[in-house]
Structure formats: structure tokens, C-alpha cells
């Protein structure tokens, strides 16, 4: 196997994991799949960093592994254990509907990105599938923890696209750090809001 093939394999597994997040009925398992997604994406970045001798990409891989692969899932799993309500199935999102939607938007994304892929000469479909599937996770779930998991997927997908395209500026690392700060803010809001109002379900705000 070439380095390129190993990196692609990591990327494909990360994309499949994002589908698993979308399809999962139970919040806790969705969090675990999100960790798996980040773990394999970090592997993808690590292989790229090693092949291109890029210190910034290596740092990005470390950030992905530590923050989104370990710390965020760990905090969320602890929170879920504390609130027994999360052990129950979400009633508002069913896996069958989510998977159908996921497949449809993935197909649209691949067709839409094809002309750009040809011009740029890099594979963009996989990150874009991950992006659309993660956005679907946010849209189809009302639960704040599930939405945060979706946001982590969105962040992963954009960094995946950046590394796939071979962007070699410090900007990508800075962006990754900033998006992690937003993730941390979201996490902080969930934890604080739960203490005050119980589980955070984003209902329609009535005017």
C-alpha cells in the first residue's frame, strides 16, 4: 500500500463514521462514533504530515486527536452518564429517514463537486460528503449534544478538505484552533444550561 492509499483509507473510514453518527439513534453511541471519526481523520492528517514533512499538518492531526478525538467525547460521555435521560432513544430522529437523507445529499454533493474536482485535481467529494452528512446531523436532531457532535463533524470535514487540497499555510492550524474554541464554547453552554434548565433541546422559539 502506498502512503496515498493509506491516507485515503483513513479518510474513507472517517466518512463512514460520520454516516454512523447520522444513523445512530442513541446519543451516547453517536458521541463514540464521533470520536472514531476524529481518530481516523487524525490518522489521515498524520499520514499526510509525514509524507509532506509538514509540521503544521502534524500539529493539526494532534489537535484533532486530542481535542475532538478524546477530550470532547470524554466530557460528553461523562455528561450523558450523569443525565440518565440520554440513555433513552431520541424520538425525533429515526435512523432510516436520516440514512436516506444522508445518501441523497451525498449523491448531490458528489455530482455538484465533480467539475471542481476535475479542475483542482484533488479529491473533494469525501470531505464534502462528510460536511453534508454532519450538517444533516445538526438539522435532523433537536438535542444539543447530538448537534454538537454534528458540529464536530463539520469542523472535521473542513479541515479534511484543507489537508486534501494540500493547503500549506499556518491558516489551517489557526482555523482548527479557533473552531475548537467554538466547540468548547458550545460544550460549556450545554453543561451550564443543563445545570439550570435540564437537558437542552432546541425547540422552535416562539415569537
Amino acid at each position, binding site marked *: 500500500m502506498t502512503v496515498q492509499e493509506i491516507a485515503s483509507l483513513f479518510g474513507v473510514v472517517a466518512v463512514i463514521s460520520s454516516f454512523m453518527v447520522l444513523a445512530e439513534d442513541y446519543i451516547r453511541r453517536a458521541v463514540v462514533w464521533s470520536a472514531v471519526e476524529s481518530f481516523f481523520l487524525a490518522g489521515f492528517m498524520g499520514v499526510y504530515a509525514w509524507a509532506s514533512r509538514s509540521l503544521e499538518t502534524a500539529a493539526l492531526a494532534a489537535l484533532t486527536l486530542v481535542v475532538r478525538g478524546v477530550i470532547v467525547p470524554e466530557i460528553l460521555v461523562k455528561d450523558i452518564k450523569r443525565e440518565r435521560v440520554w440513555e433513552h432513544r431520541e424520538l425525533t430522529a429515526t435512523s432510516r429517514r436520516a440514512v436516506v437523507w444522508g445518501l441523497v445529499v451525498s449523491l448531490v454533493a458528489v455530482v455538484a463537486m465533480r467539475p471542481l474536482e476535475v479542475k483542482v485535481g484533488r479529491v473533494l467529494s469525501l470531505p464534502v460528503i462528510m460536511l453534508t452528512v454532519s450538517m444533516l446531523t445538526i438539522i435532523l436532531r433537536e438535542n444539543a449534544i447530538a448537534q454538537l457532535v454534528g458540529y464536530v463533524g463539520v469542523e472535521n470535514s473542513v479541515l479534511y478538505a484543507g489537508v486534501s487540497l*494540500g493547503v500549506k499555510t499556518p491558516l489551517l492550524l489557526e482555523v482548527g484552533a479557533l473552531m475548537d474554541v467554538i466547540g468548547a464554547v458550545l460544550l460549556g453552554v450545554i453543561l451550564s444550561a443543563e445545570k439550570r434548565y435540564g437537558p437542552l433541546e432546541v425547540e422552535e*422559539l416562539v415569537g
Partner: protein
Amino acid sequence: MDPTVLFTAEIAVMGAASVVPLFLPWEARWPFTTIAAWTAFGLALPLAVMQPEAGLAHGALCLDPLSDVMVGVTAALYAVSATASRYSLPMMKRFFLPDRLYWGLLSAFALTITLAATSVDVGYAWMWLEASTIVSAALILVEGEKACIEGAWRYLIVASTGLSIGLLSVVVAIKAAGTSDLLSLAFKDPTVASAVAGLALVGFGTKVGLFPMHAWLPDAHGTAPAPVSAMLSGALLPAALVVYVRVMSACVSSGAHSVVPVTVTVGALTTLVAALLMTVQRNIKRTFAYSSMDVMGVATAGFGASVYDPGLVGPLMALIAVHALGKAGLFYTAGVLHRYHGIKRLDDVRGLGRSAPGLALGAVLGALAVTGAPPFATFPAEVRTLTDLATHEPAQAVLLGVGMTVAFFALNFKVVRMVVGDGGPEAPRGAQALVGTVGSAALGLSLYLLTTWKPIP
């Protein structure tokens, strides 16, 4: 005076005001922030008036006519909002974040908007916009009501996700053009340029509140403290639009002409949808939020049309400036009604003209200003946008025209209903004076712009 010195001093003042209030006793925070904000405005005003030559770049920052107007608008709203916070923050009963953070966050919010509008690098412009999301969400979270937490959550998740698509456009642009410098961004292939512009429209358009990515806007504006709503509406939305306009211009120059009708269509649809939503909305602040969406739709369509008529950029920047003051007057009115009387619904307000004439004046002038009534400077911008589109994109001109008309009657009718009648709620004299002055300033600014201002080349 050297524009660079003025700008650097303004940034330094905003930066200091972001940190210092944390270490001050509570009674000193409002005076300090207000003085700092008015100082920043004093430094920014000459930039907006002088209009230094186009493309005056200084490292990572760029002072061109577009950013000069944005610097002036942001500083003006920062100054007025800091002043108006005196009538907002002390009336809050429950806090989610410590109230001492509010003053520093307000300054940091102005700072991030200013830096987003002046960044010459689209990557850093994106980062400042994202930073502004964090800061403004924290400002919404200062109040501990459940609706505020939900509003902030939705704002964070939707705006950040949308901006991620904007980041994708930045990444593709860097790969294709080899740079993210907006002054030298050029693409060899029109297909790539079109893709970059399309992704940027979705990504930055989310932050502008364009249809159909506007879901966060009424929640965030509706739940934020009124001074923050004014800054969100008058400064943040146009700053994101300016970033998109810069990317769009670079893409159109590279042959992506298909972007223009798409931009115009999205703008026209935004105005139409916002106008229709405004007609059925009962909550005061959410109505004003949809009005912001309506004006951003007009501005987006107008910037699209400016590809056919470059002279339209000047009137559009005037529209942005006057809208900022007009909308501030409206939001401060809503804020006073909410804080002092617990009124959130339009149906609960009558007779404001007799009970609180200052609020009535600010609200009426603000509504007329943002809906493009003459003699406000929004009027020529809207008319010129419509006439340009009637020539080049007639279908979109019809959509936009219908949207503008519905929005005009919807907002002005609702505001007039608040003003006429008897038995209205009273308001502190200071708040009335402030709101009346802000509304009058929108009229004064319009008269200045229409008579003496040198249009943007």
C-alpha cells in the same frame, strides 16, 4: 492626519476597552466603556469622511472606501450601544454569564467586526467573523433566560456551520489562486471562480442572514440585549456582506459571471421572504430582525447589480450607514419597552407618541430610514438598485420590488400603530433623548450624504 495612525489608535482603544472593564469596580465600567467607545468613534469618523484612496493596504489590514464606511458605522454603533447599555444591563434580573463580562465583550465585538471588515486576507476576515460569532453569542448569553440560551445556541451552531462552508471557499481559493490576499485574488479557470463564489455566498451569506440560511437571525436578534441587537444588525451583517462582496468581485473579474444573477436572486428572495415574515410577526424585536434581513437582501441584490453599474456601490454603502442608525433607534425602543415594562409584543404597545415622545420619534424615523422612505439615503440606493436590475435582471427586479413594497408597508404600519393612541408606556427621559437623537441622526446623516458626501468611486 495619517489614516493608518487613526485606525491603529482606534483598534488600540477597542482592544484596551475589551480588557480593562474586567478589573474595574461595577460603577466605573459603564463610564469607562462609554468614553472608550466615543473616543474610538472620534478616531474612526475622519476615516469615513476623508475616504482615503482605494486599496490602501497596511500589512494584513486594508483601508479602502468599503472598509472605511464599515469602520465608521461600527464605531458609531459601538459608541451609541455602549451609551444605551445604561438602560439595558441594570434592568436584567437573571444572569447566565457574569455581568462584568458584558462591557469587555461589547468592545471586543466592535473590535472583531472592524477587523473582519478591514482584513485584506480572506482567511483572516473569516477568522474575525468567526470570532465575532463567539463574542456576540457570549453577549446574548449574559442574560439567563432560557430563550436567550436557546437563541445563543442556535446562533452559534447555525452561523458557525454556515461559516464552515465559507471556510471551504477560502481553502479552495487558496489552492486555486495560490493566495488568500483579496487585493490579488485571481483565478485562471472561471469554473473554479464560480465554485469559490458559490461556496462564499452560502458561507458568508449565512452570517449576512440571507435566505435560506437565515434561521439564526430572528432568534439571535430577538433574544440579545437591545444594544447588542443593534450592533448585530447594523454592523455585523454588513461586515459579512462586505467580505462576500470582495470575494465575489475577485471571482467576477476571473470570469465567473454566472455568480451575478445568483447573488441578485438570493438577495431578492431574502427581501421578499423577510417582508412576508414581517407581516405575520407579533414580537417587536423579531419584526425588526426580519427588517434587517430585508435590508441585507436589498444590499446583496444591489452589490450584485453593481457589477453592471459600479456607481451603485456608493449609494449602497450610504444605505448600510443609514440603516445602522435607523435600526439602532428601533432596537433601543424595543429594548426600553422590554426592560422597563416587560413588553415584547407589538399588540401590547399603543400611544407611545404621547407617553414617550422620544421613543416614538426614534422609532418612526428609524422605520422610515430602514424602509427606504425619502429623504433618507436608503431611498436613492433602493431606487437605483431596482432600475439597474430592471434593465439587466427584470424577473429579480420584480421580486425585489414586491419585497421592498411589502416591507415598507408592514414595518411602517406596525410602528405607527405603536405610536398613535393613548395610554402608552412611559420611559426614562435619558433613554428617550438617546433614542430620539439616534433616529434624528439617521435623518441628519442622510441629508449630509445626499448633499455633500463624495460618492465612492
